[in-house]
């Protein structure tokens, strides 16, 4: 296999928030991963594990405490020049969780979607702007007459499509989808996930897909990273994570997915995992390589006991 150049490379990213002089919250504490062009990287974990913080640090809504973020070969973790900011703001886009809260209720859909174009002066005239918006609307499965409406006139799924359209119009290389489907109905979730996959095929955009619902993450992701308490405890391809989970936290996450099979589900009890009582210290562990793209955060002894359990 030829060596692929990563689109985004995150190395030892740390994001700490100062609460007071003595104490700071270590929301993200040294995580590293790469995203290749055109692939989907799923980031899962419970609330407070630092998933969203990671996404926001990458797109530079926060100032990273330490570590490097390289995007298209350019280091974007330090102070950015005006030129870099412009590059970053066009090539990296974000889709937010709540489609109602992230759309300006006083603007028409066409103006919401074209806002990025206006800011960066990417259209020569009104006509070109309109055409671009119509093209994107079509791509996300909405029609032209929707452009003149306001966000409140749409259903949840349609609003999320507008959010996706807004991200797509800049023709980005990377889209960060922060819980983009969590607020939607199951049947609508499927529509949006299918749409995102379809768009990826057409435009070869990479996604950083942040979610806590593992079953949906499985559908969309090529590779998955499991985040817990600011540490990346396990990462690998989707098959590796689902078929051969090593870390006990990953196992408990997987066991918590409800199966729609009453006979099995009624008897099954989810595995519990409690960091405080498990005796695991994430700070001691190092990333162990397990073949393929599979890495797990553990000390040598921990890895041994976990892999033994996996065999049984």
């Amino acid at each position, binding site marked *: 296999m030829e060596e692929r150049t990563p689109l985004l490379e995150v190395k030892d990213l740390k994001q700490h928030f100062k609460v007071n002089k003595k104490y700071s919250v270590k929301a993200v504490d040294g995580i590293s991963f790469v995203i290749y062009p055109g692939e989907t990287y799923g980031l899962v974990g419970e609330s407070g594990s630092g998933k969203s913080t990671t996404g926001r640090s990458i797109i530079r809504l926060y100032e990273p405490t330490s570590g490097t973020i390289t995007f298209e070969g350019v280091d974007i973790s330090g102070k950015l020049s005006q030129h870099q900011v412009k590059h970053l703001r066009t090539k990296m886009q974000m889709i937010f969780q709540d489609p109602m809260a992230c759309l300006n209720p006083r603007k028409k859909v066409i103006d919401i979607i074209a806002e990025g174009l206006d800011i960066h002066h990417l259209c020569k005239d009104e006509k070109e702007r309109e055409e671009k918006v119509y093209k994107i609307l079509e791509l996300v499965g909405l029609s032209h007459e929707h452009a003149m409406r306001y966000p409140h006139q749409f259903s*949840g799924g349609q609003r999320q499509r507008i959010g996706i359209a807004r991200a797509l119009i800049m023709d980005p290389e990377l889209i960060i989808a922060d819980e983009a489907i969590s607020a939607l109905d199951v049947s609508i979730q499927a529509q949006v996930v299918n749409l995102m996959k379809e768009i990826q095929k057409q435009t070869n955009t990479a996604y950083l897909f942040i979610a806590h619902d593992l079953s949906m993450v499985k559908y969309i992701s090529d590779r998955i990273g499991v985040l817990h308490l600011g540490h990346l405890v396990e990462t690998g391809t989707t098959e590796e994570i689902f078929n051969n989970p090593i870390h006990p936290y990953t196992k408990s996450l997987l066991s918590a997915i409800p199966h729609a099979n009453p006979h099995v589900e009624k008897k099954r009890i989810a595995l519990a995992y409690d960091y405080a009582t498990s005796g695991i210290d994430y700070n001691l562990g190092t990333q162990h390589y397990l073949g393929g793209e599979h890495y797990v955060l553990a000390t040598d002894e921990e890895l041994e006991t976990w892999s033994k359990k996996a065999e049984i």
Partner: protein
Amino acid sequence: MEKERVLSIRDLAISFKTSNGIVNAIRGVRLDLFRGETIAIVGESGSGKSVTVKAIMGILSGNGFVNDGSIIFNYTDENGEKVSQDLLKLSNREMQHKICGKHIAMVFQDPMTSLNPTMTIGKQIMEGMMYHYKVSKAEAYKKAVELLEEVGITDPEKRMKNYPHQLSGGMRQRVVIAIALACDPDILICDEPTTALDVTIQAKILELIKEIQAKKNISVIYITHDLGVVAKVADYVAVMYAGKIIEKGSVDEIFYDPRHPYTWGLLSSMPDVNTNEEVLYTIPGTPPNLLNKVEGDAFAVRNEYALNIDFRLEPPMFNVGGKHRVSSWLLHEDAPKVEMPLTLRHRIDNMLKEDE
């Protein structure tokens, strides 16, 4: 032994007056709930699941009114007498005094908004007991500590003095459940109790509710759109679409032998962890706007198996054996035989195999 019927809803119809006209949110719902059993109501947003249970609790919003039907609730009052009461005939005051919180309790979706941020959780748990049963403060305190312990909160005495913001999401929902259980209700209504929570915590909360239900022999109504949750907790399932129950039956009947095309769609669109399908199935179209009058079967326009009659006449409930009832013309004896989609058939076969 005859099962004890706790709640029976008959021909319930509810409308809302909006600035755009009248929305017929519920169009004839019939449902029975027996003691100690769990029924899950599934459906998309806007299908009327929440409105149905709000009608049971008597907490419909101001512009809603009941057109028709009855909700008969059978319970034993303080004097040990059996009472059979139509909840729709009670005034708001009577509802609040006699029923809400005392005999029927509800757990809401978001634990942060359903708790009072300015009261300690201990006080919030005691409030209901002191109001309904006039117990002394000391007695209520003792019971509140017991309840907290029961819902799996460690160090309950210390937690009694905490405010909601000091607790994590999972703990908050446990407190909400403790409040709901404070007055030993006959029915517990859970409106999407775990949607706002993480998967790991979701599993624990569901197991907790199940455990408490078995211990206290209460009936539970779940509202959810997550079929995985339904599989875990429910004895009976009612699938709602556009204000009507279109299919109901035991959980086995619905999951292993679904008959309504909408149920097929729901089951197919769920992500399956065990397979590697590339594209998720989606039900085409969007739910109907209930502002408009629904002619025939509301699902017909999205239904690839729709018959001519579906667009003209509303289908009755067909009995397909056991507890299984389906509202679709496809089950009429003159209708053409239609089988469920192949992919779903395979999936169900796999599920049955998995069980062995």
